[in-house]
Structure formats: C-alpha cells, structure tokens
C-alpha cells in the first residue's frame, strides 16, 4: 500500500491541478470508509484509555484515507452509464440501440432462451455473478456458466419446481419441489431431501450464516443449517400461505410478504416477527431490498410500488399504476419491476440522502410472455429475466458494481481460490443470533439505561387505581351465613386495606424533618452518617 501512495502523489500532480477539488471528493469518499462517527473522546476521564482510543481513531482515519485514494485512483474499471442529451429520454433507448453502441462481448449478453414447454422459469445468480440457475415450473433445472455461456448441467426432476436457490457457491443448489425441497450438487446428483420443511414455496439462502430459509405452503418459516443439517428455527408465522420472501442483504433478516398486505421481518432466534409493517391494502406481491439495507421496495396487487425507509419505518415514495409481480434491486441501487411481458427499471434521480425513484429504462418482451422473476446479475450491467417461455437477459447500463473484490466474490475464481474461500467462509460462519436489525451493534457497548423511579404522583395514581379495583371486585355468593351484608362489607374493607398496604406510606412528619441535619454540618460527618443529612 505504501508503494501505491507514492504513485498516487505523482499522479495527483500530473492529472489534476485543482487539488482542492480532489480533496473535497476524497473527503466524501473517506466518509464511507470511516463507517460512522468516531467516539467522542472529550468526555473520557481515563487518560490511558483516551490515548489508546485516540491512537486507534488515528489509524482508522488513515486507513479510510488510503481506501478513498485507492477508490479514486487504483480501481481497474468504472461503472457503466446511459446518458442522453436534450429531449432524448433514457427510457426511450431500446435494447437494440444499446447493442449497436456497446462492444461485441457485451452485446452477447442480450439473448432470449426459448423453452416454451417447461416454464415459467425462476432464475438465481451466484454471488459473483458467474453462474446462473434456472428452474422451470415443470421440473427443468439448468446450471449455466455465464462467462462462456456453457450449460454445465441440466436435469429434469419430473415434478413441480416452485423456486430455486444457490447455496454458498455453484457446487450446491436447492430446489423447492412438489412435496419437499431438495439440495443438488452441481453435477445433478441429489445430495439431500429436506423432508422436514414440507412443500416449500420459497427458498432463500443466508450466506454468512450458512442458513437455508424456506417458507412452506402452511406459512411455516424454517431455517436449516446447511453445514450440519440441523434445524435452527421453525417458526409458525400464523399469516397463512405466502410466496413472497426476501433476505435483507445488510443484516440477513428475512422478510415475508403476506396476503393481508403486511410485511413481516423474521430472525431465526425469535418466534415472533421483529416488526410488521402494513404496506398495502391488498396482498403483497413482491418485496426487494436495496443492498445497503436501508431501502425496501414492496409492490401490491392494487397497482402500486412503495419504497420504504427501514431506518425510520416510513414510506418514502409511492409509484402508481404499476403492478409488479417481481421486484429486484441492483448493486448500484436501480430497481427493476416486472409485470406481464413488460420490465420497467427505476433509477434514483435525486442526489444525496433523499430518494426519488423515477423511470430509467423500459423493456417490452414478446407479447404473451409472462415474467416470473427478475434478478440483476452481480458485478455486471445485466438483468436476468425468467419468464413463461424460457429466460432472457438484457443490458441495463449502470446497474452493476464494476469492481469486484477477489476475496469477496470473484467471477474469475480458480479452483484453488475457491477451495481456500470455502475453508475461510466456514471458519467465519456466523451463529444465527447475529441476525439482527442493526448488525453494527455487535461488539458495541449498550448505553447504560437509568432505572427511572416512579414519581410521587404516579405512585398516588397507581394506589387510587388499586383501591378502585379492590372496591369494584364482585364477591362470590356464599352460604351458611357468610353472605351477610356485614360480612360482605368487612370483606371488602379488608381488600381495600390490603390494596393500600401494598403501597408504603410516604409520610413526612414535622418531627422527622426537625431531626434532619443541615448540609453544612454534613461535611463534618463520617461517611456512614451522611445518609441522614438533608438533601436539597
């Protein structure tokens, strides 16, 4: 890294004379790498701790600066874009226009695979975007290498396939079939049959936790550990059948969309949802999460797409007149919505922290195609579409992250690198408790919560309530003379008395006040007697 920085300095001088501008730009980038504000050291009294923390903050600042410089100068690729001038609109640009402009390699990424008998198709990509899995409703599973467009394996399972999902990498994938979910190896061999989960409608994989989340026909949400096969959680949602499930990539919380219009969030360690939002008046048809985890898009049958801020749990934007059967966010934050044979891509047109999604691109497929699933291919400007007549792929400039990290997801991974990564990811496997709303809380201190004492007024009010409750209790009808009015009144009196007794009397008689010792005298008292001194 040291060598690189020297290069940076040289380049800085040659390329951009306006250094101030660069500084501003770098500062904005640094912010991202600082991961929030530093600790406020002014409040600390412990000098030793203060100096330790100060030196640590310095290191954080330095490494953020390095990272920002690397982002500015050293990343090999830049993001795609689609820019128009004057009256031209980006959404008027057709796929054929794009194909003319881009290089041959990229234009090959536009294609339609027509398989009319086995659809509609569900698609899934691996984290690196190298492999695609397509699952036809009629039992057709195909594993494709997208780099060289080679079909690695296709199998016909001979029964309904409702959903498909890759596990850690392309070596294993899961398919939700008619009665059970199955796990297959990449060569097509069946590895496991997940009988416990029953007829699964949706499958999602939690990568950091090695958990396969599935929701079945009777609305049971299950988390199964794929390393040892143990069932980490089996939750009865009690909301009926659903086939809308998505994982928030930021914190791995699972969201379910229900027919009542609510979206619920679940973790493996809680039987109740973390929270539920009423998003739509009718059934929720699709849910998607922005990769930064703060935005959620939902679509309802009432022809509305809504965008939610998950930090404030409030709606940011409603997009009318579009019933999306499927939604998908890209790595750079574009939102694709598909309905019928029409795909609309929405882009965030505002800059800064506010969000305003407006149309960015459109794509119409052949009439009669029914889109089943949209998914952006990671690290590429490509949108994969699974539909009733096979699957297609179109180019959406500016949707993917241009620079991959070899240690996170590498499309050009060699066998050796893959093996090494498998070991490392197993060592870094997270326990299911770490699925939580704010994962940055891990390792942080919980702020001390002061236990609040009830005020005298509150105690009085509570006492009144208890007395009222005691007075209004209905006494049972007793026999053998125990039901006499005198007995009943005495009984009631006792109840009231006992209610009163549970609140200790707070009397401050004049005599006790007198005995209190003044503040001036308290300074000369031994510590053990100070508690008798008067407090102001």
């Amino acid at each position, binding site marked *: 890294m040291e060598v690189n920085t020297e290069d940076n300095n040289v380049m800085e001088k040659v390329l951009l004379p306006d250094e101030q501008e660069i500084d501003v730009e770098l500062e904005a980038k640094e912010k991202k790498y600082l991961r929030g504000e530093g600790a406020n050291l002014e409040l600390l009294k412990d000098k030793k701790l203060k100096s330790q923390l100060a030196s640590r903050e310095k290191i954080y600042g330095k490494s953020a600066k390095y990272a920002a410089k690397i982002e500015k100068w050293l990343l090999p690729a830049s993001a*795609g874009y689609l820019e128009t001038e004057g009256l*031209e609109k980006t959404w008027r640009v057709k796929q054929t226009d794009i194909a003319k402009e881009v290089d041959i390699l990229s234009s090959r990424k536009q294609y339609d695979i027509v398989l009319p008998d086995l659809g509609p198709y569900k698609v899934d990509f691996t984290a690196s975007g190298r492999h695609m899995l397509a699952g036809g409703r009629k039992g057709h599973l195909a594993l494709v290498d997208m780099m060289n467009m080679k079909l690695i394996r296709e199998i016909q399972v001979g029964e309904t396939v409702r959903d498909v999902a890759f596990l850690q990498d392309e070596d294993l994938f899961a398919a939700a079939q008619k009665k059970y979910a199955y796990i297959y190896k990449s060569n097509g061999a069946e590895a496991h049959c997940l009988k416990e989960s029953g007829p699964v409608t949706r499958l999602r994989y939690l990568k950091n936790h090695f958990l396969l989340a599935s929701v079945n026909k009777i609305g049971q949400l299950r988390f199964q550990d794929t390393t040892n096969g143990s069932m980490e959680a089996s939750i009865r949602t009690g909301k009926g059948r659903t086939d809308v499930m998505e994982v928030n990539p930021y914190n791995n919380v699972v969201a379910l969309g229900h027919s009542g219009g609510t979206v619920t969030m679940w973790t493996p360690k809680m039987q109740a949802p973390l929270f539920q939002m009423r998003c739509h008046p009718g059934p929720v048809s699709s849910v998607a999460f922005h990769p930064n985890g703060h935005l959620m898009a939902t679509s309802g049958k009432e022809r509305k797409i809504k965008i939610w801020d998950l930090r404030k749990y409030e709606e940011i934007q409603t997009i009318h007149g579009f019933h999306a059967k499927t939604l998908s966010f890209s790595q750079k934050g574009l939102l694709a919505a598909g309905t019928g044979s029409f795909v609309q891509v929405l882009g965030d047109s505002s800059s800064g922290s506010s969000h305003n999604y407006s149309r960015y691109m459109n794509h119409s497929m052949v009439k009669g195609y029914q889109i089943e699933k949209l998914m952006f291919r990671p690290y590429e400007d490509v949108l994969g579409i699974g539909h009733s007549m096979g699957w297609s792929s179109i180019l959406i400039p500016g949707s993917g992250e241009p620079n991959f990290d070899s240690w996170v997801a590498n499309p050009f991974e060699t066998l050796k690198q893959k093996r090494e990564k498998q070991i490392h990811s197993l060592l870094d496997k997270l326990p299911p408790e770490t699925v939580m709303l704010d994962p940055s809380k891990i390792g942080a201190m919980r702020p001390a919560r002061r236990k609040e004492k009830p005020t005298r007024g509150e105690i009085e009010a509570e006492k009144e309530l208890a007395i009222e409750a005691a007075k209004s209790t209905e006494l049972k009808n007793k026999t053998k003379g125990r039901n006499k009015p005198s007995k009943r009144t005495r009984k009631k009196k006792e109840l009231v008395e006992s209610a009163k007794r549970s609140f200790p009397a707070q009397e401050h008689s004049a005599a006790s006040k007198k005995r209190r010792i003044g503040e001036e005298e308290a300074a000369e008292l031994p510590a053990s007697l100070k508690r008798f001194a008067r407090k102001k």
Partner: protein
Amino acid sequence: MVKIKVISRSVDEYTRERSQDLQRVFHNFDPSLRPMEKAVEYQRALTSAKLEKIFARPFVGAMDGHRDGISCMAKNPNYLKGIFSASMDGDIRLWDIATRRTVCQFPGHRGSVRGLTVSTDGNVLVSCGTDSTVRLWNVPRPSLEDSDTSSEKSIEPSAVYVGKNAFWAVDHQFERDLFATTGAQLDIWNHNRSQPVQSYQWGTDTVISVRFNPGEPDILAASAGDRSITIYDLRMSIPARKIIMMTKTNSIAWNPMEPMNLTAANEDGNCYSFDGRKMDEAKCVHKDHVSAVMDIDFSPTGREFVTGSYDRSVRIFPYNGGHSREIYHTKRMQRVFCVKYSCDATYVLSGSDDTNIRLWKAKASEQLGVILPREQRKHEYNEAVKNRYKHLPEIKRIVRHRHLPKPIHKATLESRAMNDAKRKKDAKRKAHSAPGSVVTVPLRKRRIIKEVE
C-alpha cells in the same frame, strides 16, 4: 446523442497470462460489498482466541544433569544459545539450549554456588558461593562440533579469590570489568585483584542480591536481610539511598529499556516496580504469586518480566500491569529458585529445586521456526482482531482463563477473601470515624516502612 457504456471484462485482463505468473487479485474496499463485517470480525476474534488456547503449549523441554537444586543461572550476553547454571552442590554447567545438553562443567566449589554472572563480552564467568570463594573462569569459545558431541569438558578456574564470609550473590558491571559480590557486605571487585577494590556496609544484615544498572554502569541496587533495598553509586564512598519495606526483597531487576526503573521480587508474593530516583512509592505493584517471589528477570525488550516463585510457578508480567499475563507450572516442577528471560525474548528458563532447568516459550501459543510472510500477516491480523474485541465477555473469558494447580488456586481464593475482609473492615472503620482521621494508604506505599537518604 446517447452515450452508453456497460461493464465489460475481457478474460485476459483479469486472469494471468502464463501458468507461471501469480494469480491476479483485485481489491475493492467498499463496505457495502461486505455485509455483516462486524459480526464476521467478532467471529474471527473469537476463533483466534480459541486457536490461541489450542496452540498454547509453552513447555519446550527440560535440561537435567545437576544433582541438586538449581540455585542460580546466568545468560551469556554474547552468545544466544548458551546458559550457565549452578546448583546447591557446587556444580556449574554450561548448557547448549538448542540441543539441551551440557557443553562443559566448571568443578571446584565446595558448598552451594550462590551467584553466577558473565562479563558483557561473554569471556569471563564469575561464580561465588557459601565456601567463601569467588572463582573466575574463562568461557570456552563455542564451536560447531561442540554442540553435537556429548563429551563434557571440565574447565579449571582462571582465578580463585577467598573472602572472609560466605557470598550470596554476584553481578557483573555492564561495559566495564568490575563485578560486585554480596554477603556480609557489598564488595566491588576487579578481575585482576584478589582483594575487593571497594566495600560498602550499611547496617549489619546480610546483603542477599545485587544488580548493576544497565544504563549507568556505576549504579547498582542491592537488597538485604534487613528488608531494605539500597541504591549504591560507585563514584561515592557511601550508599546513596535506601528504603525499608515490610518484607524482604529476594531479587532485583532493572528495566533494560527504561534503566531508571527497577522491579523488586518480594517475599510477600508481590513484585514492586520503583522509579530509582523516587523510591518512597512503588510505581506499580504486580500481584499474583501466592508465595515468596524468588527471582525476577526482565525481557530484553523491557515490556515484560518473568518471575519464579516458591509456590512452584513461573509467571510473566507486563512491566506496567498489575497482574500476570501468563502462568507456567508442571506437576514435577518444585520451588523455582531462578528464572531467566532469553536474550531474544522468545524463551523463558526456570531452574527449580527438582534439579531441572526448564525451557518455556515466552508466548505460549507462538509458532516457532521459520514463518512465511503470509503466515506472519495472518498471526498479526488475529492478534489485532483479538485486541479489538478483548473487552467483550466471551473473548475476555477465553483469553484470560488459565488452569491453576489446586494449591495455588486455593491459596489465591484464601488471600482474596482475606484482602476483601480487610478492605471491608477498613472501609467501615473509615465510614464511622470523623472525616480525615483515617487515611487509606495505597498498596503502592503501604508496604514501604521508610526511606533513608
């Protein structure tokens, strides 16, 4: 005019050209590519804490050969592999640490050998003992074939000086050629004179240990049977300063990196770090041993020191920490009389009553041998994440946990109960007395009775 660009990666740019090349790797430090990074980091810290525990095998080997308890050891400052040891029956040996064999013996002493030291150039070994003699030996030059053969040579002393009383300790000056012996008084000797060149006496009690300052060659510290620690300056005819503590100090070590500071191994089981210029208060009290601390030696880095105790354990303390970072013990190790930190700060040697010298790793889980750069980086990363999350209860528990022998564990509990009771009693007494009439003296001062100039 529409401007369009899409991501396009040619395979050639992202893969290596020839199979001999290194694989191309790319970095993108964007946090959004790594969700749950804090949880993953914590998990790594936890794993590395557990791995550290798994790999903690500190005992390297024992060197046996002496026929009586080891009384003292000396490192050769000029030769990393050699260590001198002496036993209660008058036997002195030179060991090769790498092969754990005796290289040669130095016979001659008739009683137990009490002190052993080597000159800074590593040529002269000085020993003294209860037979009232000081013997000087020429150290044989280490040669390659020596370390392989098991033939044990015997060496004759180059000089024998006879004193009036038994000697208790000896230490050689840094850089120059004086050495100091202790016994009834403190004597300063020259290599070539049969009589001490200078003698110091303060009080009538036996001086039991002495150590020269590594920074200032004329200053030395000695501890005596009258529970005192005395600082001498050879340029003056009388001792410079003295403090008297409640219990005797068995051994003293100067911090080689901060040579104004010294640490005293005390009979009460604590070690006291002093600033040599301001002795009325200890800078730090290092508590953990449950019996008298017999010997102490600083790491050459000055960040840690090792102590050996009468409770049959060896502990390693940080120079500014109140509690030990490590405890070493085995079933067979008896009372530890002498300890040494090796000159490369990697090993710790302990000599005990069971006639063995034991060799330990200074860091219990350290990987020995040649470490590849990638391995080194991995170790550093593990250390860093562990350090970052060390305050969290799970990691703290795993890192701190040590298995203690039952007697030491029981004694620890007992002394803790006693200390708690005493503290509680003092607090109550203070609370019920007039303010200011009862003053709590901190432990750093409490064990010091007075300072004499």
